[in-house]
């Protein structure tokens, strides 16, 4: 309940900021009223959008060529960024924890701390946030631009379902690619952690990995990695939705790109709260 209240407040705040951005300086009650209306409209539109997406997903043809194009746009093109972010996170984790662990007399636990931290939480969340920044903004801006230049109308007028061709392919590509990118973030994070650790106190990669993965179980690795498929769903869904409801020319395209990133990042963090608890319950 508290969680939904937080989501409601954040979305209202976001809607409110949009109302204020539109240049009207009305009294606070009007702003709150307009924000609430905008929020419920947003929820309603999102529901309709999801309905159309389900219909698009269930009826052939499935636009395989466009899906491949989107898989490439989401996966390989985000790889370097995600790998760098993962490696940097590994380095920082190693630097920050080695000092604390040495003080606690548990320096030998460093590989385990880095591995656990990366595979259980840091890798997935870093990947989600990085991809929501790169891909979410891209989808929001691309579809927004297509909307304001009537390309989406042209597609619909040619009896081609834009929800299938544009939205569903992007959502599916994000769902499929996020777990793979998470593996990349985990891998480079662990590598970064080892490299930093070995500079301070030389240790072979093999020994580092053996120590790190000694107590790792299936439940530590698979559920947190595959929860990022849900992050991918959020990124694909929210950014496609924001893009396809763009209004107001190039300014609207900018707003869609920004709102896609902001909402994707927020919803990923909020979804993570639920998913972590869910994983703890389902995979104790």
């Amino acid at each position: 309940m508290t969680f939904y209240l937080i989501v409601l407040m954040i979305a209202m705040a976001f809607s409110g900021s949009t109302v204020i951005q539109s240049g009207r300086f009305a009294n606070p009650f009007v702003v709150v009223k307009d924000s609430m209306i905008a929020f419920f409209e947003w929820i309603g539109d999102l529901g309709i959008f999801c309905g159309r997406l389900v219909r698009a997903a269930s009826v052939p043809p499935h636009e395989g060529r466009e899906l491949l194009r989107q898989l490439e746009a989401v996966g390989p093109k985000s790889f370097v960024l995600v790998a760098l972010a993962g490696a940097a996170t590994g380095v920082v984790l190693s630097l920050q924890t080695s000092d604390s662990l040495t003080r606690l007399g548990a320096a030998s636990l460093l590989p385990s701390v880095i591995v656990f931290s990366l595979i259980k939480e840091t890798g997935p969340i870093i990947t989600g946030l990085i991809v929501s920044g790169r891909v979410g903004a891209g989808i929001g801006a691309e579809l927004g631009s297509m909307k304001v230049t009537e390309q989406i109308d042209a597609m619909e007028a040619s009896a081609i379902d834009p929800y299938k061709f544009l939205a569903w392919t992007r959502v599916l590509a994000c769902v499929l690619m996020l777990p793979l990118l998470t593996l990349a973030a985990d891998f480079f994070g662990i590598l970064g952690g080892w490299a930093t650790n070995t500079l301070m106190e030389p240790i072979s990669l093999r020994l580092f990995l053996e120590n790190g993965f000694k107590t790792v179980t299936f439940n530590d690795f698979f559920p947190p990695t595959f929860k990022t498929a849900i992050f991918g769903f959020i990124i694909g869904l929210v950014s496609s939705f924001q893009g396809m409801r763009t209004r107001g020319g190039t300014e609207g395209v900018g707003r869609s790109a920004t709102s896609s990133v902001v909402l994707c990042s927020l919803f990923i963090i909020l979804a993570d709260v639920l998913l972590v608890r869910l994983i703890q319950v389902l995979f104790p």
Partner: protein
Amino acid sequence: MNNGGGNNEPRNNGPAIVIQDLRKSFGRQKVLNGIGLTVASGETVVVLGRSGTGKSVLLKLLIGLQKPDSGSIRIQGLEMTTLQFKELNQVRKKIGFLFQQAALYDSLSVEENVAFPLDRHSDLRCAERKERVRALLATVGMEQHGKKLPSQISGGMKKRVGLARALALDPEIMLFDEPTAGLDPITAGEINQLILGLQEKRKITSIVVTHDIRGARTVSHRLVLLKEGRIVAEGSFEELKKNQDLFVAQFLSGDS
């Protein structure tokens, strides 16, 4: 019936489009306020009116991109306002739409833009499809530019490619949203000749929304003039010229 450059008469096998008491508002703004219009098969009707009088909205309502508040749109006897998604798409395949800014897909080449509807709705084999795309581009004089991206061609060329794409499925009805807007007089004349060619060769039923009075005269069998969401004058160009109404006279002469 034709008053301008076109010398073909519309076919007389029943109306292709029947619009009755069509109304559409955006918020408190009434855009269309009870439009009634019948377009015969093979006829070209030009819709004139000041900016913001709902001409483009009328075209989008016709193809089901927007829903009217009330009223009826019958295309070849089918009520568009109540059609389900699948049936609506079947009707859309018979309609070509040339958008104001051509609305070419940025990420696809000229050839791929024209092939886009064919890839999804035709049973043609790959080689046949390529030949069809080549023929369509030749129709609009763009066969040399097939590999270019939309960003690499001019506004007039985009309109030509948009027209080729709209013709890809061999439509029975064409909707033109300001086909000559933003073009120089020579290119505008070329686009008008292409529209006229469609009339003569394919007997396509067309609705053309435009501000180009010269073009309207060239391509129209009949003109309708919109004002405040209603049709205030209707007839051939010569008939409208004789109309005593000040607004009609001002509009056709371009006086303010």
